[in-house]
């Protein structure tokens, strides 16, 4: 993009007074329209990483794609919680308690003999946890980072207490095993639920009034309040979505494993954050999409599966994932451009600095 040319307001305001003020950007041709549209999307970096990962995997470990149901399973594992988390992050809040929520809801479910009752109780647990988080944030008025950090510890403790510090087996193991088998073509219920959750959240956040307003709550909270948006209710909704989705992940994991593990989810929190942020969701809120999170989860999932398949030593795998993550965040185009421009101008000043006349 050249920097010197075309400012959007080029059309100019020859005479500003009478009927209309022509301040807006004139609509350009298709290409500039496309460029504008792309500039408005937030998923670019995630997409770039995904492309790199897909190409690398296609060359090095094509099994990743031939056994795509496995890959999808891993993506769903990483991505489900991240989807719920996205709703909260979009509002400029955080939920550090998702992994613990996952563990508690799994234990609740496995402790109840009837499987359907267990599922309902687990999902209700997630909703309640979300409501408690929101209560502290909205009613008591403490920062969500802190409230959910407290819940991270408290709920993990609760999972241990409820499970007596041991894994709890499902009473109906067969149901669990059945749940883990493909339902629609090669797709397991986990993958189908993941897709359903994605579609539901995508529609909610892009089409439904309440969901659209999450962006306002995160983008400028004062403006949202001034405009009469029920900000508190939106925050409640967001945390309850996050809690519900984490509980859903707990239910799925428990069913698939046929047991609830109170230590479950140790890697969920950070992987979810990574997926969302790689996908372009801004931690300060207001910017991002669940589509971005999906892309982030796809990139991470494919990367992990191909590394597992490659059989590389785990230490090296970790180093690899770390380097890729690091490269992905430091090459955010906007940041990179600013950083390089900064270097250039400071070099320019050094060249000729302090020349007496």
């Amino acid at each position, binding site marked *: 993009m050249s*920097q010197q040319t075309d400012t959007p307001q080029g059309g100019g305001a020859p005479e500003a007074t009478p009927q*209309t003020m022509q301040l*807006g950007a004139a609509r350009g041709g298709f290409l500039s329209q496309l460029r504008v549209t792309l500039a408005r999307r937030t998923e670019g970096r995630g997409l770039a990483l995904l492309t790199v990962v897909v190409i690398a995997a296609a060359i090095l470990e094509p099994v990743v794609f031939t056994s795509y149901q496995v890959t999808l399973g891993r993506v769903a594992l990483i991505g489900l919680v991240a989807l719920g988390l996205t709703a909260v992050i979009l509002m400029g809040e955080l939920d550090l308690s998702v992994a613990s929520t996952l563990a508690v809801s799994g234990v609740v479910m496995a402790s109840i003999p009837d499987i359907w009752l267990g599922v309902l109780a687990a999902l209700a647990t997630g909703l309640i946890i979300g409501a408690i988080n929101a209560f502290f944030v909205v009613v008591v008025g403490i920062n969500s980072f802190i409230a959910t950090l407290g819940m991270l510890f408290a709920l993990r403790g609760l999972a241990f207490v409820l499970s007596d510090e041991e894994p709890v087996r499902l009473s109906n193991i067969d149901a669990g095993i059945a749940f883990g088998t493909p339902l629609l073509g090669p797709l397991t219920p986990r993958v189908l639920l993941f897709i359903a959750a994605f579609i539901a959240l995508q529609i909610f956040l892009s089409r439904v*009034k309440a969901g659209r*307003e999450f962006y306002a709550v995160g983008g400028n909270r004062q*403006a949202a309040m001034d405009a009469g948006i029920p900000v508190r209710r939106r925050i409640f909704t967001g945390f309850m979505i996050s809690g519900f989705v984490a509980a859903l992940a707990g239910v799925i994991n428990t069913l698939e494993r046929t047991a609830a593990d109170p230590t479950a989810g140790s890697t969920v929190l950070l992987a979810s954050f990574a997926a969302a942020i790689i996908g372009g969701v801004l931690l300060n809120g207001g910017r991002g999409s669940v589509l971005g999170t999906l892309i982030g989860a796809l990139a991470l999932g494919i990367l992990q599966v191909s590394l597992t398949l490659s059989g590389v030593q785990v230490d090296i795998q970790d180093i690899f994932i770390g380097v890729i993550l690091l490269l992905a965040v430091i090459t955010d185009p906007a940041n990179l451009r600013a950083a390089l421009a900064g270097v250039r101008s400071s070099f320019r000043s050094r060249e000729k600095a302090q020349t007496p006349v």
Partner: protein
Amino acid sequence: MTPVTSESAQTVIEASGIVKRFGGAVAVDDVSLCVAEGEIHAVVGENGAGKSTLMRILAGILTPDAGTVTVGGATLEGGAKSAIDAGIALVHQELSLVPEMTVAENIMLGSPPTALGFTKSKELKRIAAAALEEIGVSVDLDEPIARLSVSLRQFVEIARAVARSPRVLILDEPTATLTPAETDYLLTMLQRLAAKGMAIIYISHRIPEVFSICTDVTILRDGKLVETTAISETTSSAVIDAMVGRELKLDLQVTRESHPGEVVLSATGIRAVGVHDVDLTVRAGEIVGLGGLVGAGRTELVRAIVGADPRSAGQVTMTVDGVTTTIGGYQSAVKAGIGYVPEERRTDGLALTMTVSDNVALPNRRALSTAGVLAFGAITKFVRNLADVVGLRPPEIQREVGQYSGGNQQKVVIAKWLGRKPKLIILDEPTRGVDVGAKAEIHRLVRELADEGAAVLVVSSDLPELLELSDVIHVVRDGRIQGTLPRAEADEKTVMSLASGETMVSA
């Protein structure tokens, strides 16, 4: 149409006995206000007089500690939603838009058309477009707010208010970010809306505006109601005296003897985003003004000059005591003796959660420390001194800057740089949203600086201010200097015609 007199017209909104405290401080103290259909009611007062607080109470955003608001006879329950439903629309002083959302979405924020909870996006755009058309501004509905200029955002916010077809339209300093032409446009528009029967409450620090369109004026001072009178029964100097509570000697027309010295700043061939090949020099003891419409690229130009934003081409040098330094990055500009007072003082100029003392000490921290260790005694003395110089009120340097009014905040930003005895000071909109008293003080400071030999570069959209301060004015349009006017040749008309591109005058 109903004749525009408050007696006969129907009262739309009435606030009585409003009290609002923040902590111990009383921001609004037993104020009553009554506005009728078709009336344009001005509310004026110094910075911190309580104007915005009162308006936020009318709009249901703040709950008063005492008093009631009634609209069309019905008492408001409180809450932004119920005020909006009752037909009150507020255009905020600090822009109240969501940067990542589009123009259309912002216009319909909080009340988009829906079906079963789903937003009807076609309908949404249609209403938004209609609102923009109503106020006569055209802008891409799908553009995110973050990509718009400040003035355009202001109009989007007005469009939002209008889109709700309010009975009461409140505008809190809407013209602070507008150019004279845009201001005229807005004022005409308000008169048109009032003629349709809308009740309008209008806040401004610019007294001439008040006298040109308003029917009544309410004056606040220190949170208290001083008086409400019909415009026809008062004069601007009476209003100003009532606002300030003392007789203010406004020598706005002073002309300064300028004795320009050597060239201090020399910028050649500057190119950056929105800036095209600009040459500019500023001499010691000279005040150079940059005029133009909002969005002309003046902010970009000065930011490129000081290196706050990257340049794509061009050379900037500072010459001090015969030594020439090339300015590259921003830090080299500061080192070379440039002080930069940015346009957005709250986001770019101040660390609002820190104290006055911290803010002023920050750019001077090297001078106020030995071997990297801060000398607190020296800092206190230094900052007290500067607070005194700029006339900070109250002069409590250990208070958080965020608690000060806009005018005082601006004084703090200026004080930051005064301490470094800048060889060149660049001020971008130094008095935007600043009350008359503080404005006069800032103007004096600027002149004093120049008299003492500093080079000064001022960006201002306030034409009288620009004409009053500058020794020479460069008019900027589309990122280029369109013409240069020495003080003798500059008047509102010549500047405006250059700014809007009607004529070309070569310097």
